[in-house]
């Protein structure tokens, strides 16, 4: 049977665009909960900026220690880190639940793999979609930050691509999720013992230098610290030597690439059973 459809079916097209088809699929699935997502994306920055930028900042300004320490207002200090953090949280959600859904709860990765798509394309597609979500989240967050007067320099908008890079730096979590074969709420552990401490001790809501030296290493290994510091350089900086900024980029890229390739490897092996 050489019908019209069979003539149009193309492994070559699929080889080239496969990852995008996966992202397209995920975007379509997003439509179902578009409104809840939109409310969350817009609502979250308002909540945080009121709490930190207005509430906590008032307290800090009265004590007048913060501005002395950093040379800028608390809102300006915290805003870039909050944007980065928001993108990270959205990505981590996809790395955990999106991956496990595809492998275990719904098994639709197996369905995708039965078509011309390869394991690598499925992972790439998931990451592409994760990136889109992270950019939208960071973009909306930044808009609200600007509204509150949190961005000082015109370069502050670069916090969006930096947030994306930081989100990708957490891709190792996707590799871990790909290896999970039994659901024992491991994700609660990841969130509480990995993501949460990395957020709290990464110079997000106070400068890393405020921590005792024996705790500062958490910041040095944390993608959130590297991302936030980098974002701050463009928001109101520079506040650090250029080599350190370059180091931030290198560290984030390294995390992202290693996590990504590891995910591809584990996922491909898992599908080939």
């Amino acid at each position, binding site marked *: 049977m050489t019908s*019209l*459809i069979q003539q149009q*079916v193309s492994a*070559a097209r*699929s080889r080239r665009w496969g990852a995008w088809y996966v992202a397209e699929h995920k975007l379509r*699935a997003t439509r179902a909960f578009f409104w809840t997502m939109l409310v969350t994306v817009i609502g979250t920055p308002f909540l945080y900026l009121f709490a930190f930028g207005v509430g906590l900042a008032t307290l800090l300004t009265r004590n007048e220690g913060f501005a002395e320490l950093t040379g800028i207002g608390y809102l300006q200090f915290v805003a870039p880190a909050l944007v980065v953090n928001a993108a990270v949280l959205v990505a981590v959600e996809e790395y955990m639940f999106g991956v496990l859904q595809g492998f275990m709860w719904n098994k639709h990765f197996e369905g995708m*793999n*039965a*078509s011309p798509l390869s394991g690598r394309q499925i992972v790439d597609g998931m990451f592409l979609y994760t990136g889109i979500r992270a950019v939208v989240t960071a973009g909306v967050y930044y808009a609200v930050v600007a509204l509150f007067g949190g961005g000082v320099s015109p370069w502050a908008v670069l916090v969006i691509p930096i947030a994306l890079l930081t989100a990708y730096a957490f891709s190792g979590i996707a590799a871990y999720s790909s290896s999970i074969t039994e659901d024992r709420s491991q994700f609660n552990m990841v969130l509480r013992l990995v993501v949460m401490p990395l957020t709290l001790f990464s110079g997000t809501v106070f400068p890393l230098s405020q921590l005792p030296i024996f705790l500062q290493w958490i910041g040095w290994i944390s993608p959130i610290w590297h991302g936030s510091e980098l974002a701050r350089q463009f928001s109101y900086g520079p506040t650090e030597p250029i080599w350190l900024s370059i180091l931030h980029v290198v560290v984030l890229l390294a995390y992202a690439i290693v996590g990504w390739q590891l995910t591809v490897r584990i996922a491909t092996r898992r599908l080939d059973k």
Partner: protein
Amino acid sequence: MTAPVIVARDLVKTYKQTAAVDHLSFEVAAGESFGLLGPNGAGKSTTMRMVGAVSTRTSGQLSILGLDPDAHGPEIRAQLGVVPQQDNLDNELQVRENLLVYGRYFGLPRRTVATRADELLEFAQLTDRAKAKVDELSGGMKRRLTIARALINDPRILLLDEPTTGLDPQARHILWDRLFRLKEQGTTLVLTTHYMDEAEQLCDRLVVVDKGRIMAEGSPAALIREHSSREVLEVRFGSEANAGAAAKLEGIGDRLEVLPDRILVYGSDGEAALAEVTKRGLEPVTSLVRRSSLEDVFLRLTGRSLIE
């Protein structure tokens, strides 16, 4: 005869030390309806995954549509339709959307996929459920949607792994009807099952597989002719009296099979065998004369029944 679309020679798949598929050889011709019959754990699904070009074989030769899956996975999969044992539809999407996104994976233009999706919803008798959530569908409907999805690229070979396991009789019959139509249209079907009636309904030819090996091969009718008798008499004496009664049945029919709950008497004439049983002064609690089936073939070949 047309060239075979699937050729497997000495196909082996080993997990750690165990061989799930142990030197399997078979061929499937274009337009043929081919079945892999066997109990759970026989290696059917593993074989299907290798044929579906998603599982790398440990050794042996495998050619699908003239291509080696190790080198041309995407090219092979572009021409296959796969209905897995467990539905892996996307529950977050509506019924029709499941077809739309899947069609895109084959590089099909949006407009083509949309037309094709509507045709297939019609075929799967799901047109009025197009906008429903997958979770709202019954088991039979989900199966039909999975089959529709597998047909989105108008595949040359359709692979079905236990297509009707877990469905109620009515849903099975609807499904069989749809599959029979595909067969009539010339689609090559490869299916696994542990249901005898399903194999007899749908398969032109089949292999009986056990522990990763082929036990017998042929058409359902030929297998029955070769490995079983024309008719079977089933008699039950109650689990206590079964073994005792079996001793007294020696010589009736061609062959006896003593199972824990009943005795099977194989012969050309079931009614005559039953008359002989009564003549010997035995009174079975229940008796049944039926045609021999593939279940009997399997029992004969392996000493075990297909569904434990």
